[in-house]
């Protein structure tokens, strides 16, 4: 049984569209657990704009924890000055499904924009 089913989470499609902050945090956590500042940096890199502030970050994380999109994790074994004091967050299985639902929605929007010639064709990526 998946995490989402075992915790009685609703249909992921019911939670989309996501706010830009929530989408950026989910994307930041998609490749592994991170602490707050690392999430902020990854979210800024993904968004390409100004980084979100600490209040927005932790306000969003608090709501996402309650919605079971993310969970706290132990984090890697650190030996530095921050060892054991930082709080780490990871994506839950339900959070991953919500992220995928949001990306599907964005793909549909982009496909519509392309049909209306409002967005360019995807360029082939040289492998």
């Amino acid at each position, binding site marked *: 049984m998946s995490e989402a089913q075992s915790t009685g989470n609703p249909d992921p499609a019911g939670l989309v569209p996501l706010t830009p902050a929530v989408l950026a945090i989910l994307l930041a956590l998609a490749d592994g657990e991170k602490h*707050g*500042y690392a999430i902020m940096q990854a979210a800024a890199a993904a968004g390409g704009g100004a*980084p979100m*502030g*600490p209040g927005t970050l*932790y306000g969003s994380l*608090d709501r996402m924890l309650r919605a079971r999109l993310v969970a706290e994790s132990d984090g890697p074994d650190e030996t530095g000055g921050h060892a054991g004091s*930082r*709080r780490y967050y990871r994506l839950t299985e339900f959070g991953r499904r919500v992220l995928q639902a949001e990306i599907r929605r964005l793909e549909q929007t982009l496909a519509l924009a392309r049909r209306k010639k409002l967005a360019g064709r995807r360029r082939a990526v040289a492998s």
Partner: protein
Amino acid sequence: MNEDPAARLYRLGLRAFSREFRERYADELVRVFGEARRAARRAGPWAALKYQARVWVDLAVSAGHERFSSMNRTTIVLAPAAVACGLLATWVDFHATEVQATLLVFLVTSFILGFAGPKGAWRWALVVAVWLPAAQMLAFALRHAGPASAHPYWSRLAILLPALGACLLGAYAGALVRLLFRGAARPTGAGPTPE
């Protein structure tokens, strides 16, 4: 705790969030604030200044959002109702010839609010009461009021005391009646009655 003045000021600003949120995230927020501030300072003074401006706007907006989302349904309904009651009392006071009419509106509306939301009934009293002195001062400032006294603003601000007194009386009477109702309803609903 060895925090620099900027971090201490930011920690003070975190009081805008609810206590529950602060207890959970304050240390993390201050840490991230410090890390992002150091990164901005490395990018130059203009970036540091922009960061400071952005982080305080972010704090105000996110604290407002957090406060609103942590409100229960009763507060969300009763807060605008209390504002409306305060405005009603102000309107009555500006149009009635007797002060008793205003006092009656204060007492009745605060009673209803206290009955509907007995927990923290003083909040409803305060929200209902502030509008009358505020409107009196505004009216004086705009020269729509009567003759000036020696201390026109202070004398109008002093109206808050009887207004608040009446509202507190009404709100806590309502809260008391609600508690009595609850107490009266409890023995019939649950538990064995003594022989």
